[in-house]
């Protein structure tokens, strides 16, 4: 469906196949229905034609039967002549229902002189038939042509329709069937011979309603039959109608001309809606209904099948989108927190990283993903082994995760502290790691902040010299070290002379700058391994470590004294300052902090009392 979706407009997307199936199904149904309908129509037409044909046949056969009857009388007269025996013959005929409509069989004798055809016999001799005796048939213009036709052709002729009351046989529509009787000895062959040989006519009055009623008791449902005299189906010429009520909506209509005994009858057959069901027309509609239903069901089914796939695709798209959104959220959260993400696939040794990760690692965004060896090379040498070991522990499953702080090259010759966290997220059946995920945080600022806090806790904020606590800690450490390794230490105490008057006179700002200048000169005067501290307002202390002798210490003290004695330019003021110093050497002047400090303090005060000069180990040397 995805390809279909690309090929169809949006409104058709997902509906193309069902619509196609529906269209094909409907077209097929319509085609089948049309074919079935055409066949049904053909069957209907054939059925109707057969009914029309059958109706014609019935009339023709009935009239043929009547003719045979008349020929029987004709033959009897040829053979026997006398009429009295004809009565016996007629009486013996089986004139039952098969000859319904036949009012009797009789004879009209021809009297050439007056030109009359007088009824002289009509059997059975019931009262009604006896009334017809003596009637001159030639006098009736509707009968006369038939008499003449029968006479000239030698065949049976039928009169036109007329009211049988005309021959005194009751009021009913009917006709006369006439067959000539010639002189038996003449056997005429031409019209002239027949006219000369004519003796009489066999006469059979037929009542039309009775005749037709006996024929069409089994007319198919929905059919209406009418019989007319002549070729025009006019009501005035109607001989018979199977139903008195008007025809219902006519579905089909057909007519056939019957030429009978010189008369033409028109048989009109009409079919209404009741005729169609028997011919299978409803089946055609059922085909259409069934076809439409089947098409709809197929279309529905194809829609269900097609849309289920579409729905699955939609679900997959939703899930993918949700996953992508989730990834974006996590990435944003992590990136927002300043962390980079890394994904390490062990089998391929492929490392996938986020932009932030590259930023922390000083790699351009567009750079290729680094491999693990490049990663290790960028780690500070002091940290590398530790990092490798911790990662290996995690990969081996000894620890569930790693969280390591180490330094990496910052690309500018310096180092940057980072925090890496990681865990193995996928292992194979042998618990071998397959994939490891983790984050990388830049903790340089944090580390610097922590360093500053530690520095501030152990140093004098004005001079950035070790404060009393830090100095004591360093001194205790150095004493323990010296004690252990039998080394010497030197401790110098000093305070500034006349600092207070300067501070009072020029203000704290000048005093603070003076103290900072003193601190710098102190640091410059000692070795890097020595420790300088500020333990009071204008009191400083210097711890000399390493191989220290009293002489070397004295040199340092002299250097300090001289440095501090140099003039200072502070805030436009030219200041000169002196200090008082006291020196003590471990282990000679004291074995511990207290004794050593006391020895240095005593020496300093001795010097101070001695007139501002100073002498190592308390000895006065003179200025």
């Amino acid at each position: 469906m995805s390809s279909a979706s690309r090929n169809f407009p949006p409104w058709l997307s997902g509906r193309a196949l069902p619509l196609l199936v529906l269209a094909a199904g409907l077209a097929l149904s319509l085609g089948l229905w049309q074919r079935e309908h055409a066949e049904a129509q053909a069957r209907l037409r054939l059925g109707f034609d057969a009914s029309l044909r059958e109706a014609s046949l019935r009339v023709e056969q009935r009239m043929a039967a009547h003719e045979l009857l008349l020929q029987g009388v004709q033959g009897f007269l040829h053979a026997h002549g006398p009429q009295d025996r004809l009565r016996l013959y007629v009486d013996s005929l089986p004139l039952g229902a098969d000859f319904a409509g036949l009012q009797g069989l009789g004879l009209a004798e021809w009297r050439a002189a007056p030109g009359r055809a007088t009824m002289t016999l009509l059997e059975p001799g019931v009262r009604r038939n006896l009334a017809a005796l003596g009637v001159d048939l030639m006098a009736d213009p509707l009968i006369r042509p038939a008499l003449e036709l029968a006479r000239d052709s030698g065949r049976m002729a039928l009169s036109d329709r007329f009211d049988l009351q005309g021959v005194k046989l009751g009021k009913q529509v009917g006709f006369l069937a006439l067959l000539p009787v010639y002189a038996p000895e003449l056997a005429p062959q031409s019209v002239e011979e027949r006219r000369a040989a004519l003796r009489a006519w066999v006469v059979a009055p037929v009542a039309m309603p009775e005749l037709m009623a006996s024929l069409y008791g089994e007319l198919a449902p929905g059919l209406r039959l009418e019989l007319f005299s002549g070729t025009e189906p006019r009501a005035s010429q109607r001989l018979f109608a199977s139903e008195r009520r008007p025809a219902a909506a006519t579905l089909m209509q057909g007519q056939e001309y019957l030429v009978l005994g010189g008369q033409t009858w028109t048989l009109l057959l009409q079919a209404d809606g009741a005729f169609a069901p028997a011919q299978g027309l409803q089946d055609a509609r059922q085909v259409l209904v069934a076809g439409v239903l089947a098409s709809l069901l197929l279309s529905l089914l194809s829609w269900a099948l097609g849309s289920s796939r579409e729905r699955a695709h939609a679900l997959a798209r939703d899930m993918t989108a949700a996953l992508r959104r989730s990834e974006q959220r996590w990435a944003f959260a992590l990136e927002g927190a300043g962390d980079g993400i890394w994904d390490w696939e062990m089998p391929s040794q492929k490392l996938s990283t986020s932009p932030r990760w590259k930023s922390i690692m000083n790699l351009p965004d567009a750079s290729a993903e680094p491999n693990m060896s490049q990663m290790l090379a960028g780690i500070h040498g002091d940290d590398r082994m530790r990092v490798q070991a911790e990662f290996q522990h995690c990969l081996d499953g000894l620890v569930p995760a790693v969280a390591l702080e180490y330094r990496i090259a910052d690309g500018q010759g310096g180092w940057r502290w980072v925090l890496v966290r990681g865990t193995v997220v996928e292992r194979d059946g042998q618990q071998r790691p397959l994939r490891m995920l983790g984050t990388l945080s830049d903790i340089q600022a944090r580390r610097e902040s922590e360093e500053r806090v530690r520095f501030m806790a152990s140093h004098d904020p004005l001079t950035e010299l070790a404060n009393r606590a830090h100095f004591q800690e360093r001194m205790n450490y150095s004493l323990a070290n010296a004690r252990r390794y039998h080394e010497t230490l030197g401790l110098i105490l000093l305070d500034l002379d006349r600092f207070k008057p300067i501070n009072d006179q020029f203000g704290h700002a000048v005093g603070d700058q003076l103290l900072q200048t003193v601190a710098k000169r102190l640091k410059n005067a000692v070795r890097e391994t020595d420790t300088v501290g500020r333990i009071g307002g204008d009191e400083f202390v210097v711890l000399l470590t390493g191989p220290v002798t009293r002489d070397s210490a004295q040199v340092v003290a002299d250097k300090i004294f001289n440095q501090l004695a140099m003039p200072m330019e502070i805030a436009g003021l030219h200041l000169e300052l002196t200090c008082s110093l006291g020196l003590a050497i471990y282990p000679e002047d004291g074995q511990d902090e207290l004794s050593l400090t006391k020895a240095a303090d005593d020496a300093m005060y001795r010097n101070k009392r001695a007139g501002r000069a100073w002498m190592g180990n308390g000895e006065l040397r003179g200025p």
Partner: protein
Amino acid sequence: MIRDGIKNRVWVAGLLLGVAGVAHAGDGPDCSRPLTLALHDHGLLYSAETSSGIDKDIADELVRRSGCRLQVSLLARARIWQLIESGGLDFSLSGIGSPERDKFAAFAWYFSNKYYLLARRDAQLQRIEDFERNPALKLGVIRSFRYSESANRLVDSLGAQQRVIHSSGLSALFAALGSGQIQAMIIEPFDYPTLESARIREFSQILEFGDQPIPHGLIMSRVSLSESEQGKWRALVESMLRDGTVQRIFEKYFKPDLARAMVSF
């Protein structure tokens, strides 16, 4: 089927074979049983009113030459074909073949003719095709009649549209054409005497189908007559053609040129 005017008549031929010099005793048809032949009332072929016509003359000649006893009836054409198919009738005359009829009937041709459409002038036809195009027009035909190829196609096409009205006799069709119940009918040269009527000429026109003349002949039932008997009767008809008997019969009813054209096929 219509048995209007059924009339059994017997023409008894002379018992002397070879009277016409055509066949001798050993080669003639089998006359050991009464044979049946039916005529149909159709213009000059046979007129029931006068009991005369071409077919009756042909039948008389067949009786005379074969020496057989033929029981002749007058039947409707449709009934004749039914009886020929069932074997209830041995012969009829002036029949034309068709693939369907050839299955149950054999023929011995003795003339051919064309078919024409006799149509009312108020149908306003220029060509025969115009008739089929106008659904209001109806065609009258004798039931069971077949014609030339184009005429058959027209009849079948109109029949499927219920535009054909059947009749058991020709006279009814002329009457229906005159009264406007039908607008056309198919005619043959045998119907010319009726066309001589001035009234019919006034309101009608004749259109040609353009097909080749269709052979007509003696119809023999394959059911009742063996192949060898059919051959003997066919030889009899051919002898009538060869010696000019058929042409002489036709010349009684048609002008000599038309008669010669009809029997020369």
